[in-house]
């Protein structure tokens, strides 16, 4: 703010000096990473990363690759939307991956068919109760309810017992994974109804992710809920003094995060046509990493859904890029780790630079 002069005589303000939205930096990073893959691909593989090089189809871009880039991050992306608002409000959610596991198992057991190839479904959990061939609404509602309950417990622990969110959600992470394994004694649950199977079919995860991203961008920008998320992450004490029920808000924030994890579980189990107790392992960390790469500050108060979506795309591009370069998945994880740390370091430098400038 070196261009401003203090005092009663009016303050000069130079709009050209306004700080560039941090999302632009993430966007430039995304473009940079794509360019690197494109260049390396052209030089060493003789192939383009982004553009279509096949004669059989007549398109500018390699549509297949673009679809895969976003499809493979859609499900963790849905979780990341919920995690984003948790982090903006100054919290953290480590339980999302385990909520995915538990919810997938429970929801799937309400989505099973009665007969497989003319024989009774051997995997049906509730065959004895006759709870098979249920309308798709039942497993979806049961799944979302599981997520809401898990989120409510997270939120209530954070808000009312005042234990750190890291601990509260760590407890939920371990417990929910236990529930996922206990539910069917470790057996996978398969054979969903056709209607359940359509939820995650084809590009459906992308459609769900993108529409939710738009919805949550609007919520965080234009509603009281969004404003108070930023406010709580920024100065909880001030919010309290201003008469905002911080505890209630926190519970709501974690419930919404739980709901989004549950929705991701429904989409994932539908896409895979099966649910396993190990589903969603490490998803919570991928989701947090997407948010962090997207410029969400772990101190709370700063960041946006646009940032998280860009962070998710960076993830997708890296996974696709390594596959494109025919490099082992080991390298992928190494590079992912470096990018997470680099993103935070760069963000800190930028913050400091702005405070000085």
């Amino acid at each position, binding site marked *: 703010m070196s261009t401003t002069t203090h005092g009663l005589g009016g303050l000069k303000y130079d709009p050209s000096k306004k700080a560039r939205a941090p999302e632009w930096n993430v966007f430039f990073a995304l473009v940079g990473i794509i360019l690197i893959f494109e260049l390396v691909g052209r030089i060493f593989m003789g192939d383009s990363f982004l553009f279509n090089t096949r004669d059989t189809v007549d398109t500018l871009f390699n549509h297949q690759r673009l679809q895969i880039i976003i499809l493979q991050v859609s499900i963790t992306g849905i979780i990341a939307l919920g995690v984003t608002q948790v982090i903006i409000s100054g919290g953290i959610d480590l339980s999302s991956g385990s909520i995915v596991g538990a919810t997938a198992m429970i929801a799937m057991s309400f989505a099973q068919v009665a007969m497989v190839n003319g024989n009774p479904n051997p995997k049906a959990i509730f065959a004895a109760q006759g709870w098979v061939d249920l309308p798709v609404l039942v497993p979806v509602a049961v799944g979302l309810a599981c997520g809401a309950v898990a989120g409510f417990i997270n939120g209530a622990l954070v808000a009312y017992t005042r234990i750190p969110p890291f601990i509260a959600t760590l407890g939920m992470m371990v417990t929910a994974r236990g529930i996922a394994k206990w539910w069917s004694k470790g057996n996978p649950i398969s054979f969903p109804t056709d209607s359940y199977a359509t939820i995650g079919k084809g590009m459906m995860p992308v459609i769900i992710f993108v529409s939710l991203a738009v919805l949550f961008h609007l919520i965080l920008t234009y509603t009281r*809920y969004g404003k108070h998320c*930023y406010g709580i992450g920024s100065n909880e004490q001030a919010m309290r003094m201003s008469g905002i029920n911080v505890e209630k808000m926190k519970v709501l924030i974690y419930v919404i995060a739980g709901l989004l994890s549950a929705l991701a579980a429904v989409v994932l189990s539908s896409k895979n046509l099966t649910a396993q107790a190990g589903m969603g392992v490490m998803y919570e960390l991928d989701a947090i990493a997407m948010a962090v790469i997207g410029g969400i500050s772990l101190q709370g108060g700063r960041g946006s859904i646009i940032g998280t979506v860009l962070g998710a795309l960076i993830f997708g591009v890296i996974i696709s890029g390594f596959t494109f370069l025919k490099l082992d998945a080991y390298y992928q994880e190494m590079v992912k780790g470096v990018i997470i740390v680099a993103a935070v370091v760069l963000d800190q430098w930028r913050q400091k630079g702005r405070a000085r400038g």
Partner: protein
Amino acid sequence: MSDIILETRGLSKRYGGVHALEDANFILRKGEHVAVVGDNGAGKSTFVRQVTAVEQRSAGHVFFDGQEVDFAGPLEAREAGIETVFQTLALADDLDVPSNLFLGRELYKFRMGPFSILDRKAMRDRTLEALKTTAVKIPNVDNPIRNMSGGQRQCVSIARTAAFASKLVIMDEPTAALGVQETAQVENIIRGLKERDIPMILISHNLRQVFDLVDRIVVFRRGRIVASLNKDETDGNDIVSYITGVKGGEPANA
């Protein structure tokens, strides 16, 4: 209706064995601006914290606007019409000026529980209006206040108080951390309150400022009110002798 807006009778606060405030009898009339002065630890802030219910008093009665009140917390006090600028700023650094001004009392386009849609334009317009009437100059109200100077942030905090002031304003050392020009700006806001006939309690160490702004000066010493003096009937030396205990060994009623 009497013309008394705030009265305390026998207001006391003990922290364990420490008598931070003892038997404070205080009266504030409508439209009156009163300064509360005293050495560090004399009980000024303690007094304010009891009136605004940030802490619960140990004994005594508070009457506000004609009736006895027993606020459960600062929020109830605010809803009753007592606006306070606390020593620690109650601002959210990552929010812009309108969001801070309307923190907890947002304006809506459309009500839908927690997902009520904010009327950002109306809040922005009213913010600019409030800043104009209080003569606070902020270069860009759409920036997060994190990037603003301490003085500008204090001005936002005070503009919030002034904008929503209805019955009583309390300011706890509003200019303690401010530069000369910023202090002048805050003093202008206070003069604006006087013109609008809004009563105020000002806690300040700055006697020049006190004599400049208020009608009456109440001196605290060791948790007791030792003097209540009209500005025209006293001077700086007089006040200092009450603050240091040269004068006024006996507790007085304010």
